[in-house]
């Protein structure tokens, strides 16, 4: 059925074209012979082909274009009076004798266009006459094309300023009046097209109308091209008349398209000066018209205009562009009660973009826009519309992008209130955007108040919000988020310690709500941030020694203690242990023995109570030993207690090799290689001997269980410790002891040559011997027998 229709249409089109071509042939012949009467007769015949009702607009256009080309020739002929000998006035009458209206009017328009260009023609009358006579064609498609033809042939002949006519202003007015009227009629026809034919093919109609819309829009373009249309005329005549038509036609398609057209074809400057009128029309449009797209376009254009040159900004202020736009948007939202929320928000986004471009200094405007959103969103459940959410995110991101500075956004009181309306997921996305913005711009957040506000904004990341089950989280995303928060904490900084403490307290307050999954990410940041402050205070110690200074390292350590405690109960004992040790070190540097001791105590408690995994224990004990070794704040008693503990735990590790390594590491606790460090050679030797015993035991166990003694790595490691202390002048470590150890290893190893570690250790000794100097003398007594390779 449909296929047939299309085929038929092709056929009809072909017939029409053939008709036109045939008559065109006769027209050419008549024109060659300068025979006016024949030319008119065949032109009328040719134009009769355009009377068809069988073609779709698309096909009709094809036919029209063919006729159009022929009419151009005819126009040239008409113009040359010497060829046909009839004055243009008479010609104007002559063509009206045609009996059929469509050919008659096409010819009338053709002659008319020649007429208005001729000197001393009553231009106004002719224009008026043409546009009125065209009323005779009420068929939408034929009428549209006829009027389009009228517009086409007259556009380059319309009187305008600079066209040399007298009474410029008047003649421009005539032109404007003409185009406006033609526009009005065309629009009416275009709208009417919608209501013709059966309602089943409504969609098809709409499609066809879309194809025709440019015919209507062209008129607006012509108007914009008339130079004589200055701002005043635009304001007083053109715009009101166009808008009147737009509003009155009550057609969704037309209203949307024409509003777009107005915005696109006329200069920005005019829009700015006529904002009120233009915006006033918006609430009067049909409720189904996508006003937000229209307003968005308008604002986009104005934004670009503002961006084009700073010179134009005063104009914006002068006309109170923001207030007008804001008001208009408010009215539109109010008028279109059933506009989806996404539309309303999108409008506000456009307005915001506009504001950011035009009034970057007016934060209150931004806040006002956000306030309007809050108003719209309040009283509604949280957004669950995906698109609306996106718009809100856009709304919130815009100021961040513009100002590159979250601090500015923090001063917007409505900002967090808008965020409240987002669903949890989006809220987090938005929080991430904020954090990324801070990171990107390296913004330093310098007061506790701002931190407070910021945490309020990103609370989605900081704590569990109501109604979110934990298992909904995507592990990767979650880690990413929390890492970001951790990074963010480092961006809080103030050189004033007092303020910095406040910041830290604030941060602590917030992150403590984070729950077990977040603390491991956030606490380290906080701790290190605080430790940085401690270091800073430590540096200025001399300057500020007031009693009532609230920010002493001691206080901070108390804070830290609580913080880490929270972490250890999470439980994340290993991390807590590390942090305790860090703190201990800092306390050490601050000369705060009790504090440092407390931290160590905490660390040991954790070790005892929480760290059960043997591998973790190994790591932890090594960490403890390492840190303890560096402590110099402890008195003998405290130190003894701690070293004793450490050594004790070392020996109690599960695996023999681990035991061995921990024990020989403990030896360092008794030998601090400083100027006035502790140097207890005897206990060092004790440790090493103990290590040797354990290594031996390990070797035997291996023999028993696997039938072969494993590698001798442990022995070689211990040998290296011996060598270290030997070089450090520990009197308890003698060359004979080393000699004995080497022999021992050599016998233990089945194939000493294959043990690289051992061989290179021997080579080291050899090297020291040959190097000469004091050390060489010491080494001299050690005899080395290289294994066979």
């Amino acid at each position: 059925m449909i296929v047939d229709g299309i085929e038929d249409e092709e056929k009809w089109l072909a017939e029409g074209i053939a008709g036109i071509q045939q008559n065109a042939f006769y027209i050419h012949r008549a024109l060659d012979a300068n025979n006016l009467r024949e030319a008119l007769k065949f032109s009328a015949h040719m134009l009769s082909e355009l009377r068809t009702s069988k073609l779709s607009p698309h096909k009709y256009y094809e036919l029209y274009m063919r006729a159009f080309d022929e009419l151009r020739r005819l126009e040239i002929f008409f113009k040359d009076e010497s060829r046909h000998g009839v004055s243009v006035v008479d010609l104007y009458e002559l063509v009206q004798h045609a009996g059929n209206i469509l050919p008659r009017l096409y010819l009338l328009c053709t002659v008319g266009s020649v007429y208005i260009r001729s000197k001393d023609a009553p231009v106004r009358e002719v224009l008026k006459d043409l546009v009125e006579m065209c009323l005779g064609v009420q068929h939408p498609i034929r009428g549209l094309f006829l009027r389009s033809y009228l517009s086409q042939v007259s556009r380059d002949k319309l009187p305008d300023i600079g066209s040399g006519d007298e009474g410029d202003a008047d003649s421009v007015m005539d032109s404007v009046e003409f185009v406006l009227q033609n526009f009005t009629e065309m629009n009416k026809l275009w709208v009417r097209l919608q209501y013709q034919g059966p309602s089943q093919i409504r969609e098809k109609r709409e499609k066809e109308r879309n194809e025709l819309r440019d015919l209507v829009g062209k008129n607006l373009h012509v108007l914009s091209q008339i130079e004589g249309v200055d701002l005043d005329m635009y304001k007083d005549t053109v715009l009101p008349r166009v808008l009147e038509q737009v509003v009155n036609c009550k057609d969704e398609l037309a209203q949307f398209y024409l509003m777009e057209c107005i915005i696109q074809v006329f200069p920005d400057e005019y829009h700015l000066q006529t904002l009120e009128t233009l915006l006033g029309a918006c609430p009067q449009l049909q409720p189904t018209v996508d006003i937000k797209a229209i307003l968005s376009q308008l604002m986009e254009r104005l934004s670009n205009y503002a961006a084009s040159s700073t010179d134009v900004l005063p104009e914006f202020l002068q006309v109170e562009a923001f207030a007008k736009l804001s008001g208009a948007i408010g009215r539109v939202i109010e008028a279109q009660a059933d506009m989806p929320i996404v539309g309303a928000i999108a409008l506000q986004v456009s307005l915001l973009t506009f504001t950011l471009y035009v009034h970057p200094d007016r934060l209150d405007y931004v806040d006002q826009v956000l306030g309007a959103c809050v108003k719209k969103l309040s009283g509604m459940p949280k957004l669950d519309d995906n698109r609306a959410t996106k718009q809100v995110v856009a709304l919130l991101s815009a100021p961040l992008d513009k100002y590159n500075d979250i601090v500015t956004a923090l001063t917007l009181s409505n900002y967090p209130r808008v965020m409240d309306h987002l669903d949890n997921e989006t809220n987090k996305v938005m929080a991430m955007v904020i954090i990324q913005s801070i990171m990107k711009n390296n913004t330093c957040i310098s007061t506790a108040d701002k931190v407070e506000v910021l945490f309020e904004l990103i609370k989605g990341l900081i704590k569990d919000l109501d109604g979110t089950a934990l298992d909904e989280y995507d592990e990767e995303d979650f880690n990413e988020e929390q890492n970001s928060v951790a990074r963010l904490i480092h961006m809080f900084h103030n050189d004033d310690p007092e303020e910095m403490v406040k910041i830290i307290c604030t941060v602590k307050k917030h992150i403590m709500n984070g729950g077990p999954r977040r603390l491991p990410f956030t606490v380290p940041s906080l701790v290190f941030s605080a430790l940085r402050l401690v270091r800073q205070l430590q540096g200025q110690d001399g300057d500020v020694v007031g009693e009532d200074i609230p920010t002493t390292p001691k206080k901070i350590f108390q804070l830290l203690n609580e913080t880490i405690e929270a972490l250890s109960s999470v439980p994340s004992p290993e991390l807590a242990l590390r942090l305790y040790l860090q703190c201990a070190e800092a306390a050490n540097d601050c000369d705060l023995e009790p504090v440092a001791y407390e931290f160590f105590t905490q660390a040991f408690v954790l070790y005892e109570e929480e760290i059960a995994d043997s591998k973790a224990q190994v790591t932890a004990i090594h960490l403890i030993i390492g840190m303890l070794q560096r402590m110099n704040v402890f008195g003998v008693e405290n130190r003894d207690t701690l070293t004793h503990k450490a050594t004790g735990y070392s020996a109690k590790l599960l695996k023999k090799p681990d035991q061995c390594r921990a024990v020989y590491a403990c030896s360092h606790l008794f030998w601090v290689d400083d100027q006035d460090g502790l140097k207890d050679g005897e206990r060092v030797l004790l440790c090493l001997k103990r290590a040797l015993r354990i290594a031996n035991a390990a070797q035997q166990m291996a023999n028993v269980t696997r039938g072969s003694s494993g590698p001798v790595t442990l022995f070689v490691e211990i040998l290296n410790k011996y060598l270290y202390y030997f070089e450090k002048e520990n009197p308890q470590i003698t060359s004979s002891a080393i000699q004995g150890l080497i022999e021992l290893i050599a016998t233990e190893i089945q194939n000493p040559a294959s043990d690289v570690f051992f061989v290179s250790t021997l080579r080291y000794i050899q090297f020291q011997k040959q190097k000469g100097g004091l050390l060489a003398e010491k080494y001299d007594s050690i005899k080395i027998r290289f294994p066979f390779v």
Partner: protein
Amino acid sequence: MNFLAGAFKPPCKISISLADGGARKKVPLKKENGQSVMVPLFHSQENIVGEVIIEPLYGKKVEHNGVKIELLGQIELYFDRGNFYDFTSLVRELDVPGDLYERKTYPFEFSTVEMPYESYNGVNIRLRYVLKVTISRNFVPNIVEYLDFVIIYSVVGVRNYSPPPAINNSIKMEVGIEDCLHIEFEYSKSKYHLKDVIIGKIYFLLVRIKIKNMELEIRRRESTGSGTNTYVETETLAKFELMDGAPVRGESIPIRLFLSPYELTPTYRNINNKFSVKYFLNLVLVDDEDRRYFKQQEFQLYRLLENP
């Protein structure tokens, strides 16, 4: 046959020429055979001056009982063929009975002739003016051919001009079909001269039918005879499309119809009690299913003096 034909040939040639023949304006006149000839144009009250030339053929002698020229105003009714009514008849004697041997010229003149009606060529009727030259001959009584060859008609078209009418109201009317279509139309005047333009508009008050197009027709109604013998003939002289497509309520469609391209005559009322010619404007609306809705209005035509 040639011999016979020769015997019946008129023995002389008669021609009539008018004194201002070359300068006088000529207009086309349709003959019975459908062909148009150009004939001189006269106004009422004009002098008709000219001469008749009689030229015998073959040097023959033409005997006659006198030569006369007549000016006749005739009304001819086609349905009553052969029936002429002479409403004007003027005679000038050109020659007394005698013989004609050679070419002879007779001047004639009809002064300020009253020619009250215009020449008219209608469907059922013809009104014409002729000059008729008759050479009366004495023959054997049973031969009547003298009418055949001695009479030559020379047709003179006469038209009457009138001044513009003093009162000329517009024609305005609201018509319609209940709940379907209401229109109001207006023609600027009720009386138009023959080269006039009909200006007007049609205003659509209500449109519930699907109109395809609208045209304006000029119709001529010719009525002849009287009483039971009245013959009425109507012709459509012009069809002029005013509108293409369906208008909506509130549309106003302009009318501009130039009368000059059409072959119109003035309105004639009861000419010599024989016939009338009236003109009508017929507004026709055609709907999608080719139903026609129309309203007919009489309007008057008159001939305006071209160079007053």
